């Protein structure tokens, strides 16, 4: 076994492990926002490591370049999808507010984000806001 093989194996195992923790995080974290953290950080690094390991193992084959592309697009798209999902979750109030230490976005009296007026914010809320009444 050459040194390259060792490096490739370490990358593959570490990457798979990170993907596993990402999956574990998805199950164990309390709300959507926390789950999105699991879906971005360990997941992206995990995929990058698996790709690195595969590139080392497959050096010289044309498929290597496609693996590079997979890594690049993973870096570009993972934050965007996570942002979109968490933004919707926040606006629909799927947030465990009891687990928040601070919430500067939801401070009453401050203008809402993205230049939204009060009417916009109300339109975003579900008709029955049980979390709202709890505050």
């Amino acid at each position, binding site marked *: 076994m050459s040194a390259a093989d060792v490096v490739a194996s370490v990358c593959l195992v570490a990457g798979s492990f990170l993907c596993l923790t990402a999956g574990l995080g998805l199950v164990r974290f309390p709300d959507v926002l926390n789950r999105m953290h699991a879906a971005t950080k*360990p997941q992206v690094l995990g995929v990058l490591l698996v790709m690195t390991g595969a590139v080392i193992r497959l050096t010289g084959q044309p498929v290597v370049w496609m693996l590079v592309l997979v890594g690049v697009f993973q870096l570009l798209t993972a934050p965007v999808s996570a942002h979109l999902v968490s933004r919707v979750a926040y606006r629909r109030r799927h947030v465990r507010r009891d687990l928040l230490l601070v919430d500067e976005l939801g401070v009453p009296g401050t203008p809402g984000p993205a230049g939204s007026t009060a009417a916009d914010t109300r339109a975003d809320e579900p008709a029955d806001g049980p979390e709202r009444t709890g505050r």
Partner: protein
Amino acid sequence: MRARLRQQALLLVWLVVVWNLLWGTFSWANLISGVVLAVVVTTLLPLPSVPTSGRFRPLPALRFLGTFVVDLLVSSAEVSWLAFRPGRHRSAIITVQLRTDSDLLLTVIAEALSLVPGSLVLDLDRERRVMALHLVQVRDAAHVERQRANVLAMEDRVVRAFGSAEDIARLDDPSTETPETEGVGRR
């Protein structure tokens, strides 16, 4: 007009590179078919032009990239540990007043912030340049302030790497902060 042409050319080059990478080999056939496809795609599906005023500075860019890789390792380890560890952790949602006023730079900052230091971009008020972030784990108020400083440091690195001279000048000039937004970051 010249900026628009330059942007189109960059987009074409990027599409041709992606096409060739997908094929896995660089050949004349791939190059020519890639150029034809790229022209067809950009003509049929035109994208709105993004104003680019910035320039590329190799050394600060390297610094940004290095910090980014280290941050990615650290934050992945942190989130993994949270996934394994028993018990609950406390999160936070903070708003940060940014100083950059460029669409492209704000995009880079938002992408980088979502990937690295325990944060996830929830919202961006483009007019007032206020970014709302979700922090996965905070211990106390001091930790929140440290994270806020981290966000501003990230902005600093991105702007110094890719921003124009005016963008960098804006970093050091606090007078661009509009007074009514100053209190947003504080309780």
